[in-house]
């Protein structure tokens, strides 16, 4: 099993996300993370999909995506050719006994305190997904109140862009 990140450039029209997720559902593709946003062009949206599986599973998913008329371009990423990151917000109980340990860990990971009250501390961390996993695992020693993470987004290193391979 490998982890794959695939960026999909789609026409920015209502219902496109539904078409993509409906395809995942009916073909029984299991997705670990999915993000959607507008792009540098108002006509295009970008979907980033992260999933685990074998090579042929990935190929089938990409092939099926290419069949959707709303899909303009697809790019596969790995850690060598791209930069990926994810945003985490995590809220913990503000306990005087653990406060310093949490602060030390946060500093080590580069997490920032974004909210502070007598009862709780909220931290923000932007990093690669596996770093965020590590940080959450570390925080499990304390009392986690809530976690929210965005799923990974990726861009290719260097001057290439996904739009260069558009096949309208």
């Amino acid at each position, binding site marked *: 099993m490998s982890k794959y990140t695939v960026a999909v450039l789609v026409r920015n029209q209502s219902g496109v996300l*539904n078409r993509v997720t409906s395809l995942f559902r*009916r073909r029984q593709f299991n997705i670990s993370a999915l993000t959607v946003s507008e792009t540098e062009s108002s006509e295009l949206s970008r979907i980033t999909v992260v999933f685990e599986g074998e090579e042929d599973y990935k190929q089938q998913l990409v092939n099926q995506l290419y069949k*959707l008329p709303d899909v303009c371009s697809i790019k596969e990423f790995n850690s060598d050719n791209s930069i990926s990151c994810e945003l985490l917000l995590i809220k913990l109980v503000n306990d005087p006994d653990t406060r310093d340990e949490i602060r030390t860990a946060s500093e080590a990971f580069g997490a920032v305190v974004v909210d502070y009250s007598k009862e709780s501390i909220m931290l923000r961390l932007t990093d690669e997904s596996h770093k965020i996993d590590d940080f959450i695992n570390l925080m499990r020693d304390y009392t986690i109140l809530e976690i929210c993470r965005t799923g990974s987004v990726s861009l290719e290193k260097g001057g290439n862009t996904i739009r260069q391979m558009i096949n309208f």
Partner: protein
Amino acid sequence: MRLTGSDILVRTLIEQGCDTVFGYPGGQILHVYDSLYKYQDEIHHVLTAHEQGAAHAADGYARTTGRVGVVIATSGPGATNLVTGIATAHLDSIPMVAICGNVPTNQIGTDSFQEVDITGVTLPITKHNYFVGDVGELADVVREAFTLAQSGRPGPVLIDIPKDVQMAVGDYAPAAPVQPISPQPAKEVRIQEAAKIITSARRPYIYFGGGVVSAGAGEELLALAERIDAPLGCSMMGLSVLPTDHPRFLGMQGMHGHLASTKAMSGADLILALGVRFNDRATGNRAKFSHGADIIHIDVDGSELAKNIGVTCGLRGDLKETLRGLLDILPAARKPAWWEMIATYKEEENANQDTRPGMTPKNVLERLNAHLEADTPVATDVGQHQMWSAQYLNFKTPRRFVSSGGLGTMGFGMGAAMGAAFGTGKRSVLITGDGSFGMSLQELATAVTYQIPMVILIFNNGVLGMVRQWQTLFFEKHYSATVLGRKTDFVALAKAFGAWGEKVDCLEDLDGALSRAFDASGPYVLDCKIDADELVLPMLPPGGSMDDLIMKVEGKI
């Protein structure tokens, strides 16, 4: 010029070369029907008895002509009645454009009377679908739908048009008929790779399917077989691509395929799979399918390569162009040793022929063959009669076998046979069973209204034969819900609808009855009595491989 949305729709259909549409009116599509009335000299609307019949008719029209079939229905139940027809076209990759009315845009999403989210419902069974919210987009949406339906791997596209968009006025500028996105051959390097594998094969076998029909690649297919000296077999969707009596053609393979083709595939060291998707009905047990043979798979839809079967070499590209690329570089070869093996397969098949006298399915269909012209379209429903038709009918012209392969839709045949008659301008034949016919016999009304010349041959065994066959073989003859025991008199029924009909109880009467049916100017029902215990053989049990092939079932069942 300024036109209403409904006029723009009909004008665009005409502009795209659509001469016939099938459909059924209703409240939210009234404006479109008003435009159809206005342009009736340029576009012919066929009113069916049920929207499902209209969808199957558009499908039958498309299968026999290669052109896009068009069906029109109202919102809500009209639209949902199309669903089985659209799914049938989707599974068999048939170009179709389905047009539905919907409630006005300001009522969308409020659960109005006869409102249904048909773009949501049809999402998984269309290539693409559109909700047209602006009359300014309508003409281009129709054009894009026609392009998509025909391009690459064909399929159905649905357009949902709210009533206010049909009424709104917009600009219309006529355009030329769209062309399918131009077909590209597979990559040269892949063609080279495939040619190398083919050249080193000692026992090549060609397994082709519906993709060859869509691509119109029958000639190239035969040229390839001649060049490399290979026998050919096909999935059900490939039938009628080649003349049935062609010496290289071993017939349909798979669950109920010919023994010779099934054995040849088993004995091959190279399987050339062309325009097929390795459906479980065609392959049997996929794990044992390749038996170590190399597989070269060519398909226009890249997602089919390695979807169901791992292949040695997958080529994504238009079949006609890719086969031409192969023919450019493949040397001629002769495989006498392989043909000696093929001859033994054929002998074994011949030794197992059904030679019983009387009203057996084989004898009935052989009599029918004598009445078919080279270009008579033959539609079927689904079940035993469908498999017998696939096994025993003689085809001479491509696009003349019209049958629901992927979805296996009982009730498909009546609509499809009507659409085939409209598409080809020829008398069509429907081979059906009493079960399947019961699902769509209301379309007799349509066939009578339009005086469609149609021979409707019912294999009447009083049971749901195919399901019952599985119960016989795998469920200890527990005939649960498969014995119909109905009192329907199909001859009286035909007459009640205004058609002709007669009963055929013995083989001696069949020729005369067929002659009368083929001379009639409208629909003619032949109610042919056959034994309830007739089986479709040979049979690969579900999940079985060649070793499990059932050739004969001893004794009376």
